[in-house]
């Protein structure tokens, strides 16, 4: 009895320690994902895209600097690139609105997707945003539908679509560029329904519980891989992509190449249908009437 109690005590302690270690890991990842020196979309474009020609504007009312887009050659393939752009200096950050797109940004993405579709160019997106911009003009300018419409239009593309999450994958603003055939994610990037701070403020009623919320949200690449939300975890240099941006870009480039090689073998219509099915499968539910578990992953049940 004593022994088993002792064992139980030690096991509990171990569990707590692991728990702590894990929490620590998650928060470290959040911090690396937000690191000021972390390579941005333009850095990946510089490393991976030859002859990049930036194309601006939504053809409606603005060019949103929080979204960068254009045509270029990815290892011999002509592609369309669209990504969130964060700045590094304060001036840059302000210019790019910290990577928070406004409706004009999503619409710019939409019209570039249409260009890619018309000329059968594969689409590469880079996701790096705290989320959509929570401003009055953005709201009243139709942010909600702009995001929804971007997702629907991505779903309808007949060309291959590969999304790479390279930093913060924040909420709907991130997802708007990630309705892709393959979602790749760097080791130290995060992807989440809400920021840890936002989640803590709502559920814990105290933003100081951010680290705890981060852990609960499971926003890291390995966790998302286990949940089936991403296809590939792209390794980063030790300590994060900012330590060796070139090596980081090489790894991203290799992962994108693999994805494109696979996707370009598929019939466009099949590819489109599979993309839809990919998102149809995401979720965890059970249906006893069907006698089936609800999802391919259901770590715990109710």
């Amino acid at each position: 009895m004593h022994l088993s109690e002792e064992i139980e005590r030690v096991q509990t302690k171990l569990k707590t320690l692991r728990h702590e270690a894990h929490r620590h890991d998650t928060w470290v990842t959040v911090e690396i994902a937000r690191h000021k020196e972390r390579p941005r979309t333009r850095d990946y474009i510089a490393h991976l895209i030859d002859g990049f020609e930036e194309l601006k504007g939504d053809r409606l009312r603005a060019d949103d600097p929080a979204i960068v887009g254009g045509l270029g050659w990815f290892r011999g393939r002509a592609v369309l690139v669209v990504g969130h752009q964060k700045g590094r200096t304060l001036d840059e950050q302000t210019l790019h609105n910290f990577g928070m797109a406004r409706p004009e940004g999503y619409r710019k993405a939409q019209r570039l997707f249409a260009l890619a579709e018309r000329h059968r160019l594969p689409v590469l997106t880079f996701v790096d945003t705290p989320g959509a911009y929570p401003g009055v003009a953005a709201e009243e300018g139709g942010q909600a539908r702009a995001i929804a419409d971007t997702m629907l239009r991505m779903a309808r593309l007949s060309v291959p679509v590969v999304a790479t999450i390279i930093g913060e994958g924040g909420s709907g603003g991130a997802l708007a560029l990630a309705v892709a055939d393959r979602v790749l994610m760097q080791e130290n990037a995060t992807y989440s329904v809400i920021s840890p701070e936002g989640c803590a403020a709502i559920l814990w009623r105290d933003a100081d519980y951010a680290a705890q919320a981060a852990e609960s949200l499971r926003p890291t690449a390995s966790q998302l891989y286990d949940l089936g939300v991403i296809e590939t975890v792209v390794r980063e240099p030790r300590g994060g992509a900012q330590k060796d941006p070139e090596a980081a870009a090489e790894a991203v480039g290799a992962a994108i190449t693999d994805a494109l090689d696979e996707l370009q073998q598929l019939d466009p219509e099949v590819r489109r249908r599979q993309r839809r099915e990919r998102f149809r499968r995401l979720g965890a539910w059970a249906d006893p009437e069907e006698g089936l578990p609800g999802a391919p992953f259901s770590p715990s049940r109710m």
Partner: protein
Amino acid sequence: MNVTVEIEHRATDPQRHDWVCRSCHTHSDLAAMRELLYVCPQCGYHARIGARERIRQLTDPGSFTELWSGVKTLDPLGFVDLQTYPERVLEAQGKTGLAEAIVTGTATIADTACVLAVMDFGFMGGSMGSVVGEKLWRSAELAAGEHLPLVAVCSSGGARMQEGILSLMQMAKTSCAVDLITDAGVQFIALLVDPCTGGVVASFATLADICIAEPGAQLYFSGPRVIQQTTREALPAGFGSAERNLELGHLDAVVPRADLRDKLGAYLRLLKGGEGPERGETRGPAGRGTGRLAEAALDRAQAVAAYARRALVRGDRESPDEAQDAPA
């Protein structure tokens, strides 16, 4: 915040007969309010109502057949905040009498058969988790496969945070569901009711052919509090209201509750009245009371529901085309 729940609670409590308007504080008789569809007779305030009451108001009596009520919520992340996720779900189920934040099925609306999906804000703030996404998907798939219109009544506080990234994915999943609808060319009408926010308004709710709202409904992606905390901007008068959204081009119409059933019926008839081979059985604006057509619509709605019940919708019916040999 949960007028919905209050109404439903009171309605089952014979001891309490009065209803107090949230807007003008007038007391009204609860039974009378049911007749008035829970719209304040003094000030026109449209109270929040639950999914069951909404279905009663919108559909032709007895025409609604529920589908997929057994789809169960899971706890994929083992999420714990101040409460565990399962505890929160059980509480919501107790409070609303619903299994989840959406009720789906087939019905006729003003004598037109349709697939109907109704969200309930009383259930964890109408938050969209995997079950909401899945039932919305099945609704869209059934509508596409059976060439029935889809009517969605949307009300939500946003994503179901307790399902983490999987709740975010429901935005993509439901947008892909609209892709099914688009491919099939069926009609899709969304009714946005107070409040409709966050991930729902930024996915399927705003992708409908026709998008209407009830008077006074609050509709936004980021709410006033988040905006003020983040940007410290002053909010314009009426920010997020249905009326302002109409001016801003985001809605087709703002429709009082009493007119909803007729309005939906009119839209459905018009959208399926266009040129084309299998169209044209309902010509002209009148749609109610034409006994034979009404019966045919009801038969169709019920047959589709029976078919959907029999079929293992998942897996069996990959593409809408394959569903064509279902009973029509």
